[in-house]
């Protein structure tokens, strides 16, 4: 039988190849290991493009819905409202996309592959950092979709290209920082469903109770108090400022401080949870 001979030959081949010793080189640097693991996540996005639904179709629907549904009522004209709301929806979409980090991490860790990573002599948090870096690609897609749809509908940033790019970068940095919270939840919660539930709960006050959709001046005092300290509000104001060509150093500063605090608190917690994960 032909298969048998192929098998036998394969076995003979293996005898020489497998035994040939390959010595272990120096372990990769922290950066190289993180990038390699990020590359893995990018490959997965390529293989399962449905993963990009929430950063492609969702923002399109949000923009259309909010602009045409509320535009007239809120700002008198859809065009004016678009100018106001687009930076906000951009922030909201990207911030929402960071939630996915926790869910995918939770599913991933349930499988054996993390065991393999953890049995390698690589920088421990590399698997986390890699996943978070790859998620930045999703954020870029989300930002690009928002801007493209907005421009097609008539959104015109007054700021320079440089300002717009800076605005997008600021949003990316914020989403990266925020994703540590969701990574932490992804590690400590039992199931992906639970991660999604809890993250959504955190997401609503962050994105809706903010200045994303409306000017807070008409809100009751207690809500305004929250909206004013909500880091997403500062981020939205900063992004609006940049896109309008009048960047506000104060809001940019507050946003960046928010990012630093998020990372300072949640990165160590997440890494610790990851180490403890048995």
């Amino acid at each position, binding site marked *: 039988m032909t298969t048998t001979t192929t098998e036998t030959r*394969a076995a003979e081949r293996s005898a020489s190849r497998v035994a040939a010793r*390959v010595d272990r*080189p120096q372990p*990769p640097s922290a950066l190289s290991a993180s990038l390699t693991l990020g590359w893995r996540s990018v*490959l997965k996005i390529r293989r399962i493009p449905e993963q990009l639904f929430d950063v492609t179709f969702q923002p399109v629907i949000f923009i259309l819905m909010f602009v045409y549904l509320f535009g007239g009522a809120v700002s008198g004209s859809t065009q004016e409202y678009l100018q106001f709301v687009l930076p906000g929806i951009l922030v909201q979409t990207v911030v929402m996309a960071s939630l996915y980090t926790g869910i995918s991490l939770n599913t991933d860790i349930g499988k*054996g*592959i993390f065991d393999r990573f953890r049995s390698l*002599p690589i920088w421990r948090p590399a698997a986390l950092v890699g996943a978070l870096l790859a998620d930045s690609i999703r954020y870029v897609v989300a930002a690009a979709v928002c801007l493209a749809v907005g421009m097609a509908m008539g959104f015109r940033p007054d700021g320079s290209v440089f300002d717009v790019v800076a605005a997008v970068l600021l949003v990316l940095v914020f989403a990266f920082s925020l994703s540590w919270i969701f990574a932490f939840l992804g590690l400590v919660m039992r199931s992906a469903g639970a991660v999604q539930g809890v993250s959504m709960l955190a997401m609503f006050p962050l994105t809706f109770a903010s200045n994303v959709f409306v000017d807070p001046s008409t809100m009751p005092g207690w809500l305004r108090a929250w909206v004013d300290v909500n880091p997403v509000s500062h981020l939205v104001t900063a992004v609006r400022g940049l896109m309008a060509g009048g960047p506000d150093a104060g809001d940019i500063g507050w946003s960046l401080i928010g990012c630093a605090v998020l990372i300072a608190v949640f990165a160590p917690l997440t890494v610790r949870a990851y180490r403890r994960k048995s």
Partner: protein
Amino acid sequence: MSTLDTQTMAIEAHGLVKTFGENRAVDGVDLAVRAGTVYGVLGPNGAGKTTTVRMLTTLLRPDGGSARVLGRDVVDDADEVRKFIGLTGQYASVDEDLTGTENLVLQSRLVGLSRAQSKRRAAELLESFDLTDAASRPVKHFSGGMRRRIDLAASIVVTPDVLFLDEPTTGLDPRSRGQVWDIIRDLVAGGTTVLLTTQYLDEADQLADRIAVIDRGTVIAEGTSADLKASVGRSSLHLRLADETQRDLAERLVAQTLDTTPRSTPEAGVITAPVADPDLVADLMIRLRAEGVRIDEIGVQRPSLDEVFLTLTGHAAEDDDTERTAA
């Protein structure tokens, strides 16, 4: 431990304990594996095999006891230990969404090979493991045997000094199992020490230089396959008569000569009996000839590892001490 022992031992564990809540999954396991040998850890479901392997490979912190791999402590020197080991876990530890090539390149990059070296090594391993045709297919479309092989390949992108294999052939057909065995033998020939867990006695028998039988988190017997068989005690006589009508006479002679009670077997003309002293079988043959009993086949068999396993795990509680052969 003398210095000589520490130098030649690839894996040493003393009193390893791991508890999950009330459940003492691993309850004082001692292991000593010589460098360059294959060590089999044999045990039924839930015995604590995987938990033991996870502690030895630094994935799980022991609650008690200590373990060293190539002289490095698995807790204090975990990073050092990881530089010398390879692990193929019980459950597929490759990325289902990535192709065979991508998985191996990923693994090669993570151990520090350059991009070009990684590609070359991936292609080489795929060929050795007979997976070239599936190289660009996502692993989720692989058959069980192919998955096991890609998993094994991923743990040897660089040659590990100590390789841990958790049930490497569970669920494989006999031919795939043979392929995995060949790969393991090749690695050992290249100087790798292998610790493998298995539920299959023939696998331990075929591959392992020494075997530890574990049950409910403790080692209930340890030794070479021959030691273990001997520890269960006696060999058995297997006699097939040419003429079934001589059975009564033959049974009487067996009983008298060997001083035991023959066991009844369902097979026509077959008599089996425990043998304390195989020398007596020669006497039996002379008497059978003298009485005119004609025989088709006669032999003395050592107990199979299956019998060992059943005896050990079936009566573990009362026989624990007497059957612990070596330590």
